[in-house]
């Protein structure tokens, strides 16, 4: 199943920065006809007072009459983002930027929306543009570094952060990103120096989280659990911590503990993609489909179009005997992702259930081909 966990993993340390930047206040309206002006003002008021749902309704109503108002578009995007509807937010920001191509705050919000849904490759060029325009701004620089790290551009991260690390010798975030990039770039000795600097500050939840998530990525699940358990003991409020702690528990066999961890993460951040997906998948395996659906739907809201989530939803349709719906969803998935073997497997089963033997056999052949191709890539000798 396609995953983007590594980006979120590396992004932990700068999420707080992103959250701060993401709270762009609603822009004020210019002169409008009295009635519409009041709708916009009310929406802004609602947004400022934290009533995001009312703000969204107001902006949407206003934009129905004034579809090209960049302020309303931008503010609506911010409101959507606040509710975890990042895809909708991106649509609004893009529309606003078409009208005002040089609006830096909107650009930043667009990049942040991409960043939040794990689209590092979309976010990075925008952060890079912001960084070049204002190289002294710390937050866009850090976010850019994190995106590059997620994209495997380790050398660029080192080049970007080396000078900053000298200026901000005590900044843990810089040290983490730089140290990780150095280690991943096989500059282990230099990486050690940077990370030792972190360790000199003593045991911290952040350090344990970094160690734990890196071990998770390396499939050292027991080691990850040890570090993440310590992180939980040191600071259970650390953003994203319970999401990764849940993963470590899951991979080491404690399913019940994992579910509790995911629930705890979602209590603090209902839009955490990983926790929604994993908890939904666990509930699905328990045949608790009604329980699973809200989590999977929320995950899909956070990352619209995510193939892994859509596959889970399709299998629930199938398990509930909604075979035609499952068929439609799976056909769409394999069309978008022709090498998604698991989706082909389930689609074959769906076809057989529908007595469509020829289609089932066709999918089965695709599965066999994909598996054979995958096996040929396995390390080891080629069979004689």
């Amino acid at each position: 199943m396609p995953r983007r966990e590594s980006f979120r993993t590396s992004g932990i340390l700068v999420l707080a920065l992103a959250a701060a930047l993401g709270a762009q206040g609603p822009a004020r309206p210019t002169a409008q006809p009295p009635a519409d002006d009041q709708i916009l003002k009310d929406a802004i008021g609602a947004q400022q007072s934290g009533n995001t749902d009312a703000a969204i309704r107001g902006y949407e109503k206003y934009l129905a009459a004034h579809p090209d108002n960049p302020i309303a578009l931008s503010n609506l995007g911010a409101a959507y983002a606040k509710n975890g509807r990042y895809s909708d937010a991106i649509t609004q920001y893009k529309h606003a930027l078409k009208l005002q191509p040089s609006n830096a705050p909107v650009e930043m919000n667009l990049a942040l929306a991409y960043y939040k849904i794990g689209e590092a490759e979309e976010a990075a060029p925008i952060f890079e543009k912001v960084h070049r325009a204002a190289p002294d701004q710390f937050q866009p620089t850090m976010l850019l570094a994190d995106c590059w790290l997620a994209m495997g551009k380790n050398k660029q991260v080192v080049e970007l952060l080396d000078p900053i690390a000298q200026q901000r010798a005590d900044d843990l975030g810089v040290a983490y990103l730089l140290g990780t990039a150095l280690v991943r770039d096989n500059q282990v000795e230099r990486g050690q120096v940077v990370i030792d600097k972190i360790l000199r500050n003593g045991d911290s939840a952040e350090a344990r989280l970094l160690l734990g998530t890196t071990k998770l990525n390396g499939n050292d699940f027991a080691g990850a659990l040890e570090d993440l358990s310590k992180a939980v003991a040191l600071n259970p409020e650390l953003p994203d911590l319970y999401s990764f702690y849940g993963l470590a528990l899951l991979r080491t066999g404690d399913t019940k503990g994992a579910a509790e961890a995911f629930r705890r993460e979602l209590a603090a951040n209902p839009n955490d993609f990983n926790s929604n997906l994993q908890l939904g998948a666990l509930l699905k395996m328990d045949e608790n489909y009604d329980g699973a659906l809200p989590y999977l739907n929320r995950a899909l809201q956070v990352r619209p179009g995510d193939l892994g989530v859509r596959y889970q939803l399709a299998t629930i349709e199938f398990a509930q005997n909604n075979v035609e719906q499952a068929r439609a969803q799976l056909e769409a998935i394999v069309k978008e992702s022709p090498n998604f073997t698991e989706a082909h497997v389930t689609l074959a089963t769906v076809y057989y259930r529908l007595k469509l033997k020829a289609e089932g056999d066709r999918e089965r052949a695709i599965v066999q081909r994909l598996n054979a191709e995958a096996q040929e890539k396995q390390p080891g000798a080629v069979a004689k």
Partner: protein
Amino acid sequence: MKSTRTKSKARLSRRDILTLAAGAGAARLLGADKADAAPVFEEVPPSVSGITWVHENAMSPERYLPETLGPGCAFLDFDNDGWMDIYLVNSGPSDFYKPSQPIRNALYKNNRDGTFTDVTEKAGVSGGTFGMGVAVGDYDNDGWPDIFVTAYGKCILYKNNQDGTFTDVTKKAGLETPGWTTSAVWFDYDNDGHLDLFLCSFVDYGTTEHMSCGDNKLGRHYYCIPRVFRGTASYLYHNNGDGTFTQVQKGTDIEKSLGKGLGVVATDINNDGLMDLFVANDTVQNFLYVNRGKDKNGKWQFEEMALAAEVGYSDGGRARSGMGVDAADVFNSGYQDLFVANVDQEMFSLYRNQKNETFRDVAHANGVAQSTRLLSGWGLKFFDYDNDGAVDLILSNGHPDDMIENYSAQVHYKEPILLFHQEDGKLRDVSAESGPAFSKSWSARGLASGDFNNDGLIDILIATNGGAPVLLKNRCGAGNNWLGLKLQGVKCNRDAIGAKIRWSAGGVVRSRLKNNGGSYLSSHDPREVLGVGKADKIDWVEITWPQPSGKVRRIENPPLNRYIAVSEA
């Protein structure tokens, strides 16, 4: 470097960083000592049982894959004295291994007092090939169990001479089979009254040169993951009824399906009276061969439909490393459910029969998936260990890579066995409360079930790779009542494979299909023990014999807590 002085303060070392970068772990948790309660299963040591035979796995620096797959084991009553004897399979000479000392299989006669005597040489069943597994069946319907040994290289059929000795009749029977065979099962697919033979074929391992997958992180050869080998077709032999067999898989889905078979169970998934086959494959999809009978050309056909039946892949659509299998009517629905064990992180599957030739994986809902996430499963068995009438489950485990602990902190080479008890229609992991045997770890492979002391409580025998077999005596103190049946077919196959048993006690009617095979490389006590819980009588037992007779025999008020023989005649 000065930074090393900071380690104690931070409690994180430079080595932590380096190991995490390499994706390796070092920490290992020690397992806590578990139950203090009276053991449900008690390990019988060799000093008590007299079983001193030890498996030689032939582990070499090259790490040839056959070294890590064996061995199997069996409970059988070879001398028909009513007491279960034991057969153990060993490795032996092969194209990659020349033993420095003689290596042999072992047949242990039950002395009826909890001890066993090695009678291998007299019986003439010592093997002499690189053995894998064993399947016991009365292929010639003479009332005496015969032994089939699978192998890397050369299978052997030992015909029981009815005098405590056996004769190798492999060639005469037409069962000389090339390649690498693993699990085998006797069953009567065409209901002609003679047991046929299905043979799992593992991978194409080459001829004189064998695969090397290079060196691992330790700079040593390791056991290749079977993904790198080509799959092979399994074998189906038809019993001609005259002591010979004919290979008949050609033109069927059995020939067309290239797998890497490790486990097989014969069962009837759709209650049509024709025995089907569920085959566990390593790294490719499992196979479910549904017996469709004769086609219009008179050719017997099996339809491979694991994908359609949802037992080919994981719930998430992934091919896994299937090894051990079994079948039973776990949930008393009247239909056979299936089980397959896989390697760590894949979790095992318990497939509930949906009564329409499809299944649903309910392992997670039964706690099985959670308990097996870190384990690699081989021999396993559905059985009712406490005779309460509900089907329970035992799983034996062990990772195939002897160096796994160097790469993984949470997965071990030797692993514990697990016991599940059925309560309120769900399985519950009771390993922690079932005795010290469940706190220990083994490199388990084959597993056989059988009542070696005839107390009505089914015992367990586990064959370990490179070690001594583990005999677990069932000491369950539930005090439930039971009836043991030894079925003797007359028109149907003598072992009555495919018979359906129903029994009524305490207001509950239960049923059981006499499946065959299951587990991994192993063969089980052929008798059926019917648990009735606290009921103080059994109202009736009904046996529907398999075709060709299809007769129904009903026994009113049978005796309790003893074995009885029931003949089809």
